[in-house]
């Protein structure tokens, strides 16, 4: 392969690696789908100089149009400016790659590719970004080195030297140094500043009912079979026994108008239970939500945000956050539930803002009669709640199929006609029935369950595990949860099927990437420093796991071995040495090739004719004119024949 063709291929590869890194976050934009084939084409073909001259004008016009579009959008819709900028970048990259390779083009292509990587960093890309970056650095090192060698040779009026594949590979491996410095800077540079140019984390499309108003019936449409992970939870002080069946509380709703749940302004904030009893600490990383809700096990008694985030507790006792990053926070929850007996003994009383929790929409007489009949035998609020919960769980069915018409979407249709629905119908029904019976209650949205990921030691809560349940007020104990939804076939998407382990592995990788790269912050840096200066403290779990560490060691050793490897001898020299060793072992020793040829002929050694012919070919390949390829091939055959005769 000529140096020019090699250079062109490497330049296209460099740009494609940058695109791969970019798409790991931004996805396959239409402009990417156009750019990739053009770049692949540029690796093998480039227009003639005359054709390129004719193409220059239209290319510039299109580039100007794209630039004008980007500038206009920068003012008109600043949040959307990145897409037209990327379109412009990709167009310029294709134009540059297709341009006749004039040996200075690689620097411009390098700059454009780097700009694309910078743009890609704004999208919270996945671990593919790291792979793309590593590939980009390797190809950049090779491309710029080959390009520079070509430029220098041309500047001195010399032909560009051919660069062997092994040398090229070694240059690529040397790029590990650049990556290592990148990782070092990444790890030690203090995370402190924030400013105007930050791009907020992309909100998830999850709409599981965490906004201020949640419509009954719209819930299931958005959660059905959505396996995307919503929360990843670690338990620094130990994993609870029932880790796969925990309730991750998000937001509560007090006002129901018959169709929608909403939130009232309460006159006083809800009291927080004291931090005693059974406490469970959770480190939670959530995808960015449209409504900034923070989750935690019931009942959260303390909350601490990670760097660059602010946590707030509203008057309902729900947690929200403020910040432009993916939310990560630590919650301390009191998970012990008062005993049934103690709850039965509590006097009936209202919580702060109590009337809000007894509000019911205009309900029919049969609904009131239903509530009365269900709670008739109960003498306290707890027994009333248990009776309603049991009735719903045992006599109704769970389904995610939505009602076909609006009248069928009402609570009464659910209770008296359809008798099947999803969690939101059950929780709404129980809340209304409790309120009709005079028990203060509210509807709560969150997640239930999760899939334990042993690759990363965390609980993955997916969006299809969104759930609604009920909280009832008991003086002294606070809000106590009840779940009237019957069991459903809710096998975890991550654990299900033959691809389960692979899914868990990939999600574990994404979790580590998010934890240790995307959300690596001042807290992590100070924690690492603290561990370094307090060696007695038990070390935290290895962030990347033994497998990744092993991979890193293997890559390092391979790189070192490649850089330090003794250069491979030319093929003809290796064949000559093999021949010499074989005859030396048989007692035919002489100084140099000609000497050995003389000795073999003189002593009529086995295979002497072939050996002498091989020696002649060796001398011709090694010291003769030309590239010696034909001689090398012939010599190999002659050596084989000679050694075969010798062995006989």
């Amino acid at each position: 392969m000529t140096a020019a063709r090699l250079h062109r291929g490497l330049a296209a590869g460099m740009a494609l690696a940058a695109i791969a890194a970019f798409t790991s976050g931004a996805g396959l934009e239409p402009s990417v789908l156009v750019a990739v084939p053009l770049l692949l084409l540029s690796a093998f073909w480039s227009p003639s100089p005359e054709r390129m001259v004719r193409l220059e004008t239209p290319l510039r016009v299109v580039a100007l149009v794209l630039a004008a579009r980007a500038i206009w959008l920068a003012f008109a819709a600043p949040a959307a400016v990145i897409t037209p900028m990327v379109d412009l970048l990709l167009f310029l990259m294709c134009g540059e790659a297709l341009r006749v390779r004039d040996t200075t083009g690689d620097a411009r292509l390098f700059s454009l590719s780097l700009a694309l990587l910078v743009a890609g960093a704004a999208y919270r890309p996945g671990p593919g970004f790291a792979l793309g970056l590593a590939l980009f650095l390797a190809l950049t090192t090779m491309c710029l080195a080959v390009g520079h060698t070509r430029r220098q040779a041309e500047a001195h009026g010399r032909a560009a030297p051919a660069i062997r594949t092994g040398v090229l590979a070694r240059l690529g491996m040397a790029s590990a140094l650049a990556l290592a410095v990148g990782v070092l800077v990444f790890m030690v540079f203090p995370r402190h500043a924030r400013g105007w140019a930050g791009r907020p984390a992309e909100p998830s499309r999850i709409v599981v009912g965490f906004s201020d108003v949640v419509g009954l019936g719209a819930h299931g449409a958005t959660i059905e079979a959505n396996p995307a992970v919503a929360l990843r939870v670690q338990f620094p002080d130990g994993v609870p026994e029932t880790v796969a069946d925990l309730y991750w509380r998000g937001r509560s709703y007090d006002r129901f108008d018959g169709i929608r749940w909403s939130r009232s302004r309460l006159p006083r904030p809800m009291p927080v239970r004291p931090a005693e009893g059974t406490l469970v600490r959770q480190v939670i990383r959530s995808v960015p939500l449209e409504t900034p809700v923070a989750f935690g096990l019931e009942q959260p008694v303390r909350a601490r945000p990670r760097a660059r985030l602010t946590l707030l507790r509203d008057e309902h006792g729900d947690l929200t956050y403020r910040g432009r990053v993916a939310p990560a926070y630590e919650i301390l929850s009191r998970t012990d539930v008062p005993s049934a007996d103690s709850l039965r003994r509590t006097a009936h009383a209202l919580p702060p803002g109590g009337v809000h929790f007894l509000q019911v929409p205009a309900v029919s007489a049969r609904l009131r009669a239903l509530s009365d009949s269900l709670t008739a035998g109960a003498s306290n609020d707890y027994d009333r709640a248990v009776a309603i919960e049991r009735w719903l769980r045992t006599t109704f069915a769970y389904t995610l199929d939505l009602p076909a018409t609006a009248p069928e979407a009402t609570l009464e249709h659910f209770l008296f006609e359809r008798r099947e629905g999803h969690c939101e119908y059950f929780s709404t029904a129980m809340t209304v029935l409790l309120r009709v019976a005079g028990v203060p209650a509210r509807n709560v949205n969150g997640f239930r369950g999760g899939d334990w990921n042993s690759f990363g030691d965390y609980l993955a809560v997916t969006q299809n595990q969104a759930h609604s349940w009920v909280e009832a007020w008991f003086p002294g104990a606070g809000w106590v949860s009840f779940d009237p939804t019957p069991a459903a076939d809710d096998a975890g998407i991550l654990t299900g099927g033959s691809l389960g382990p692979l899914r868990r592995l990939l999600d574990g990788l994404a979790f580590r990437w998010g934890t240790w790269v995307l959300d690596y912050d001042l807290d992590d840096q100070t924690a690492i420093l603290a561990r370094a200066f307090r060696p007695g403290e038990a070390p935290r779990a290895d962030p990347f796991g033994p497998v990744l560490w092993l991979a890193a060691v293997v890559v390092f050793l391979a790189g070192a071995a490649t850089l330090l490897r003794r250069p491979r001898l030319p093929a003809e020299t290796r064949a000559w040495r093999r021949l010499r060793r074989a005859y030396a072992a048989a007692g035919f020793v002489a100084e140099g090739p000609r000497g050995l040829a003389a000795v073999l002929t003189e002593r009529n050694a086995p295979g002497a004719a072939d050996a002498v012919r091989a020696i002649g070919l060796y001398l011709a390949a090694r010291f003769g004119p030309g590239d010696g390829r034909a001689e090398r091939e012939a010599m190999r055959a002659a050596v084989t024949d000679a050694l075969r005769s010798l062995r006989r």
Partner: protein
Amino acid sequence: MARLARRIRVLRPGGLLIGGTLALGIATLNTGNNLLYLLLGSLLGLILLSGVLSERVLSAVTVRRRTVPPMTAGRIGRIEYDVTHRRRGLPAFSLEIRDDGWQGEAFLPLIEAGSTLRATSPARAERRGVHSLGPLTVATSFPFGFFRKERRIEGMDTLIVRPRTDRPVRMPRAAAGGQGQGSSLARVARRGTFRALRPWRSGDDPRDVHWRSSARLPGPVVREYEPERGGTPWIVLDTRGPPDAAEAAIEIAAALAARFTAQGRVFGFAAGPRRLPPDGGTGHLEAALDHMATLDASPLAPATVPPAEAGECILVAPSPRPGDWLDVYTP
């Protein structure tokens, strides 16, 4: 511990890279985007990698200046170097070798590990003499062309630069006799046999002008004579005088010697205390030129004693000297 003597110059792409890295650094600090920290570090890593690879190239090679052949003043000569890559692993790329204080540089696009290549640098000296070749500079901008790193290699050699031989001179007179003495017939006899007419050159005797032909042609022409084969002339070079005039005298003597050699004639050479007995051929000419290359050209230069009768000697000097010379050349 050996001190690493390196000089680093930032080239234009390197300047752009540093500027881009600074800009990215500002954006990184401003946004706090973790991946930008990674990219920033990777760019710094590329700069470091550039330094490591170029150092690997420079420290892997040894450069030895070959025995330098004499050069001629005003002409492009060459300086040769043997460059050896004495490490294993990566080849050395894009090596530029330059003698400090000299124009021109040798270039090797690639040297495989463990091999030796010869590199040649064009060189040109304007003045004759013995020149010193001091330290060498080996440089490379490998791998990316961001920076040019130079390493000095100590070394001391001498380079002999011979005087130029292309100065136009007239042919000497054929027979003995002082300038402007005797009858015209005798002068003609001393000049030898008429050979041809040629354009007039500075220093020609005006009496040799062929006026009839000069009137027909655009410029003056003079008669040129074939010297008599009988005598062996000695070129007697006297360099005592003002340096510029003495240098010019040396160039005249060199041109005269070259002309004799080109005509296949034998001549002797004397300058200062040294004499080269009459001989012919290129070797004799080179010996004379080497001698002229090392001559002192100043009022304090040693006097030249004529090795033969003045009538057999052609005097070349900054200014005329008394004597019955075969011919006299002055600048």
